[in-house]
């Protein structure tokens, strides 16, 4: 942050990858957040605190709305289906499949936060938005969820506007040096596999 934008050599680059994932939104019924947390823990997932993202096998959990969590697991894993969660959470929560509703992208590289500042009003400096933080905001007139994890930035956006966001990211990233990277899976953002 000490240097002006020009200090980022174009070669430093931004890597942009898509992240196909099963996405389930868990919502706790009134006063049942703790029960839902226990249920998730029993299934091997720690629900992230509000405004945070956690990564652990088998995937990611993040929370940008009170009493709500998004669970991201590998698209082909067969784990974390909404139906299974709905049955398990009956009485304490609601599970809705959003796998088709949200598109997930992963941006990495030293200039990512500078590039995102071209539209994102959030303070994305590492000290203000460190690894593990997540937030919902508006970028390029579209609602997005941003989460910092493993040195990368996870970006979730509605599927129907994903192409618009993607095109903007590609255009805006060019001066920083853009590389389109192979698809990632949620596991790539956790543990030793971090991008």
């Amino acid at each position, binding site marked *: 942050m000490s240097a002006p934008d*020009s200090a980022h050599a174009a070669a430093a680059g931004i890597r942009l990858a898509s992240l196909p994932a099963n996405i389930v939104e868990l919502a706790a*019924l009134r006063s049942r957040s703790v029960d839902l947390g226990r249920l998730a823990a029993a299934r091997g997932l720690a629900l992230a605190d509000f405004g945070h993202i956690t990564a652990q096998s088998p995937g990611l959990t993040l929370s940008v709305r009170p009493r709500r969590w998004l669970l991201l697991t590998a698209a082909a894993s067969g784990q974390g289906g909404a139906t299974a969660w709905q049955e398990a959470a009956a009485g304490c929560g609601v599970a*809705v499949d959003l796998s*088709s509703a949200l598109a997930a992208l992963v941006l990495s590289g030293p200039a990512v936060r500078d590039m995102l500042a071209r539209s994102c*009003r959030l303070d994305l400096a590492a000290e203000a938005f460190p690894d593990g933080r997540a937030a919902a905001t508006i970028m390029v007139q579209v609602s997005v969820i941003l989460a910092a994890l493993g040195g990368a930035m996870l970006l979730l956006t509605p599927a129907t506007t994903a192409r618009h966001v993607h095109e903007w990211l590609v255009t805006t990233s060019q001066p920083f040096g853009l590389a389109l990277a192979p698809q990632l899976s949620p596991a790539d953002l956790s543990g030793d596999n971090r991008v």
Partner: protein
Amino acid sequence: MSGPSRIARGLLTDPAKAVSFRFDGRTLQGLAGDTLASALLANGRRLLGRSFKYHRRRGIVTADKGEPCALVDVIGEAGREPNQPATAVLLSEGLHAVSQNRWPTLALDLLAVNDWLGRFLPAGFYYKTFMAPGWAWERVYEPLIRRAAGLGRLEGRLGDHAAPAEIVHDHADVLVVGAGSAGLTAALLLGSAGLRVLLAEQDIVLGGGTLLDARWTSWRADACARLASLPNVRCLPATTVLGAYGHGTFGALETLTAQERARFRGLRERLRVLRARRVLLACGAPERLIAFPGNDVPGVMLAGAAHAYLRRYGVAVGRRPAFFVNNDEGYAGALALAAAGIRAAAIIDARPDACAAARAREAGLEVLCDASVSGVLGRRSVRGVRVMLPDGVSRSIPADCLAVSGGHSPATALACQLGAPLRWQEAIAAFTADLPAAAGRSAGAARGIFGAAAAARDAEHAARALAAELARPAPEGAAWLPWPADPAATPVRALWEVPGRGKAFVDLQNDVTTEDVRLACREGYEHVEHMKRFTTCGMATDQGRSGGLVASAVLAAARGVPLSQVGQSRPRPFAEPVPFAALAGGEVGSHYKPRRRLPINDWHERAGATFVSTGLWLRPLVYSAESGWEPVLAEARAVRRAVGVTDVSTLGKIDVQGPDAARFLDFVYANSFSTLAVGRARYGIMLREDGMLFDDGTTARLGPEHFLLTTTTANSAAVLEHLEFHLQAVRPQLDVVLTDVCDQWAQFAVAGPRAREVVACLAGDLDLSNHAFPFMAAAEASLAGIPGRLFRISFSGELAYELAVPARGATAVWEAILAAGGPHGIRPYGLDALNTLRIEKGHVTTAELNGNTTAADLGCAHLLKKSGDFIGRTLAARPGLLGTDRLQLVGVRPADRSRRLRNGTQLVTSAARSASLGYVTSCTPSVELEGWVGLALLAGGRQRIGSRLLGVSPVHGETTELEIVSPHMLDPENARVRA
């Protein structure tokens, strides 16, 4: 030799790098690092333009962006950029600039006749002179005045040279505005305390006033190096903070370097939105002019500018300059020029004596104290000055330029925008503005503390206070080299105007004279804001930086009140002109607005669909590139006679779950949903709080505590917001979870007499018989092998099913539908055909559901619950919403079936009667009925069914006799949908 020339090496110029440029067609040479203004001065050019109104000759007045006179057109790859201050245009190889507001040439401008006619053209003359005849103002007077006045001209070519632009959001604990000794000191201290600091400086280099004093060179270099080593401090040179907007938000405009321009695809300016917890304003104090006759002649400039041209670019503004000052700072340029071998003709000081005067005399310069300049000799450029001596004797002194310093006015604009009141400071003859502590601090010259060392000391105190407030106390001791001491100084003596014959200007850009200000006062515009608007003083691109306070002082004298009572006009953003491209940022062209694409958008494209934008959505209008109605009617005909399929994924879909889901829906809908059985759907209407109809749609019950609510495409986001508001704020006791699943589900309507056969091929073992799966049934189902949902609902008026599948599997299901429907002649149909079908059936969309209609107006009053609360219930019962003469939904058909209908056609009883009884909201040629059919909103419409009215379309010059019919023009018994 006389006139300006380059005499030394400047701080910013590189003598080894010559740069060619053109001005008014003539090729000249400058140096890398020059501005256009410094290069022109180095080439001996003083005359750069003509003034706004009088077309008087104008030269260079300042050395920064606040230049009022030396404005030029710069012609480059991006087109012609008018009104660029030559003082801020960096010289580049091949730069092409031309002077503006002259005809035919700069030297011979025929419109300079305005100057001779000046006595007939005072401020506001056109308000009084061009009163009659009234029609002539727009046709004659205004066009003529606009041609004669103004400065640069915009390129006629529009729209194809939009420069790339971007808006960047920055955040900091403290924003430091200005990087002079005060700003640098504050940034260093705050940075050392660990605070995140943004240091914005409008100059291309950091240093401010210290750049003009060689004693500060090592201090400045050391400070800049220390700042560069602090990772939490970010320096933004060439960045002007344009305005303060409260809550710690500031706008700033950055001018990019050539290197940055190349990297960012030719980007020239970058608009920065800065957000900071506190601000430290160290933005200095611009020098002001003195009003005296001829103070606009080329060669008259500010003393600080004369100093800056010498130090920064090695350019002497004259061989024999005179100085006219009322403060010690004004001597600095004369002393620096003397050291460089240019001896001032004289220094005329309005004060009886001064410390600086003694230093000047020691340097061998002539100082005339207690004297003033009462006029300038020369019209084309300065040839000398007429000096009024204390004994009343007038003396002419030959000189080739005149450097003026009327004191310094602290830059208070940002502070005022943050709510700081102006305070008159007699000691500095200027206003200051103390920031509210919650916003930040002002420091140094910005709050009237003059002298680089004094300003730095003041900034240190302010920064320490800010650091403590932000819980990051600064380390004790100085983190910088010792400050060079300020020389002893004698206070400024207020001097605003020297009376005399001839025009004395207070606003050089808008040609406002002292006499104009007095005229404003005589005409009753006594308030400074009224005077500003009457005279346009301070409304030019320089925002009255050098003459605003002088105008206030002239006004105060005219009113006979102290200047403190008059004040200054309120400064508003922007501080300098901002290109529209910078305001638009990157949201132009294909990024102008988001495009929502359907899950099978690519299939629609491949099928040759013509798309239409509806809100943000791109929807297939018709699967044909042909214009006209025939392709549309062919699609609609397929639905009426066999089967068709359309993509209705744009419908809003909201998942409603929880123990209180049914109660919540009973509250938000005007009809009841708690009685809906699992596996069934129901049409519902939703009212706004004011009782007007808000939205409609079908809601299916998927489980005892699980509903899927659909909305119109247009109201999708608004309905979700409405529901969230009422759940969180009005019925917070209800345990309900709302989830927007619009993008999750693709939804396809299969409609037509053969729909059942088609869907049966896809729905596996699901029994689709009328008994097992009747109209308004809903079920989870495997559709073409993909888990989804099946609804038997109809918008077309035909037997229809809607298949919902997760968007990822949408293309496979859509293609399976087409394959299954192939033997039945299935056709995909677009939005136009959908519209045709729904109009025939009498179904409403946003054309009728327009925010001004009630449930009763649209014939849905029978749906309103008789008991129980729901949103809008009370206000829907207002007498005004119950009248039978309200606009009500009806169907319309031309009596002559060969005539067409048009949307917006007004309904009247006779051609002679102009009062409209209503209008056609939607119309289409019919595939089922003869001719055109339409829907209309008609006063007392239901009572007029069976009558005839005239439909008048003045836009098309058409009058058509219309039959008023039931809106349900097709299958009113709903036999088809229940087939």
